């Protein structure tokens, strides 16, 4: 079996529009959360959100390429262009090699709702324009990126709720390890607009701490009151070790293990047993011991129940080793379909620069988080092996183990 390594990363999020800005924010413990007043007017319980500026692509991409890109596709394009440049993949390389793509995405609500609104007004589908269909489908990111970058390998979207981005990386690594692809673009994208999160807000799981937005997302803290939605996109170039060495590419890390599981129970509530099974499968796949893990980037979103379940699972596996844990969602909010990919990028940046980003706003543990070694301040530390967890609606779980090379 081949080894799957990461040779390029790109990120566009509420804490930075590139790896340098994001690294600085992670180190500073800087939150990207703010208020979107439109959400209140629209009927949201909570106007809190990650604040993400849309990139300007006119003059960067030709019109035909832009017309089909939904908001999350724009973010994904920027993150992917960064990752390809980082990996040293240019147009000549794309022309001469078969590259695949697995990207996590699980909605394109704005495009769908805007098309519906136009149709209700005009009563004529031919007035929706040529881009509506390509923006509206769940596979909008992969269909557009595969066209823009002339990809010729495996090409599909992974929809697995808030674990989409993580599963996309795991599946990309599997394709590479099996020798089916030399290079796969992996990542996750998430739209950030008032049309995409209304039904999620309606469940009453978003934080209402509007008086202090940067303190609203507080994973594992006793006084957490819900998550803050966010988004953007993150891309990783996953490549076989041999291929990367042959072309002289910089190698960040190896994807040592991928674990997955399904809770087989409640549609919205987490389950410690399912989380444990995904983590243990990743550890077995990686061929390591639990004690080998230097840092855990938790899924913890700042909801009362979800964080308690993950804390219970993590405590049962890692409490005896005092393994450091932080949830970068304390700064970014919950990047949903993108989160598994962005948190892999955040973890890689910590590994590259030798520090652990803090779980900001963690002030008081509760019964479940008390046994965990939660990182509350930026700590300099050499990180060799890290675990990144992602869990989603429907009980889908993903765990990635990454080793610095």
């Amino acid at each position, binding site marked *: 079996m081949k080894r799957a390594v990461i040779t390029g990363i790109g990120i566009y999020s509420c804490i930075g529009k590139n790896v340098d800005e994001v690294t600085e924010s992670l180190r500073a413990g800087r939150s990207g959360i703010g208020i979107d007043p439109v959400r209140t007017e629209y009927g949201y319980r909570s106007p809190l959100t990650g604040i993400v500026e849309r990139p300007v692509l006119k003059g960067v991409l*030709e*019109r*035909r390429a832009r*017309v089909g890109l939904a908001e999350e596709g724009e973010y994904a394009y920027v993150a992917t262009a960064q990752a390809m440049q980082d990996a040293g993949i240019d147009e000549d390389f794309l022309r001469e090699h078969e590259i695949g793509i697995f990207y996590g995405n699980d909605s394109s609500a704005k495009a769908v709702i805007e098309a519906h609104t136009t149709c209700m007004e*005009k009563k*004529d589908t*031919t*007035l929706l*324009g*040529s881009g509506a269909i390509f923006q509206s489908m769940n596979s909008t990111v992969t269909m557009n990126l595969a066209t823009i970058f002339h990809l010729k390998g495996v090409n599909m979207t992974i929809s697995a709720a808030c674990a989409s981005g993580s599963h996309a990386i795991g599946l990309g690594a599997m394709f590479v390890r099996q020798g089916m692809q030399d290079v796969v673009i992996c990542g996750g994208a998430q739209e950030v607009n008032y049309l995409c999160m209304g039904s999620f807000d309606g469940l009453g799981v978003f934080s209402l701490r509007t008086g202090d937005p940067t303190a609203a997302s507080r994973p594992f803290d006793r006084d957490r009151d819900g998550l803050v939605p966010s988004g953007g996109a993150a891309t990783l170039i996953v490549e076989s070790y041999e291929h990367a060495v042959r072309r002289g590419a910089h190698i960040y890390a190896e994807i040592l293990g991928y674990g997955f599981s399904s809770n087989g129970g409640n549609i919205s509530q987490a389950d410690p047993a399912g989380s444990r099974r995904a983590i243990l499968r990743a550890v077995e796949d990686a061929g390591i011991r639990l004690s080998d893990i230097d840092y855990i980037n938790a899924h913890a979103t700042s909801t009362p129940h979800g964080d308690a379940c993950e804390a219970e699972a993590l405590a049962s596996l890692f409490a005896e080793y005092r393994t450091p844990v932080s949830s970068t969602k304390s700064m970014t909010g919950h990047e949903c379909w993108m989160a598994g990919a962005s948190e892999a990028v955040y973890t890689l940046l910590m590994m590259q620069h030798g520090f652990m980003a803090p779980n900001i706003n963690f002030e008081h543990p509760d019964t479940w988080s008390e046994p965990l070694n939660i990182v509350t301040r930026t700590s300099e530390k050499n990180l060799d092996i890290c675990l990144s967890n992602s869990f989603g609606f429907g009980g889908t779980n993903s765990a990635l183990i990454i080793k610095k090379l």
Partner: protein
Amino acid sequence: MDRADIEKTINEFLVEEIEIEENLIRDDALLKNDLGIDSLDFVDIVVLVERNFGFKIKAEEMTDIRTLRQFYDYIEEKVNA
């Protein structure tokens, strides 16, 4: 709306929205071969005509239209009908 205004409006949306290079805009330009308008662009032109002139292009009426001048003629005829 007179002919000059119609041509100006069409030229503006072809340049601004469809992003056709301004120096290619000539009366005798072929829509497909000279301006590069393809079937997906035409879907967007239907939207732009409706937005700017308030009526809907019928595809069957466009079958014989090859040049920009013929397109101006068609729009002028519809606007003044």
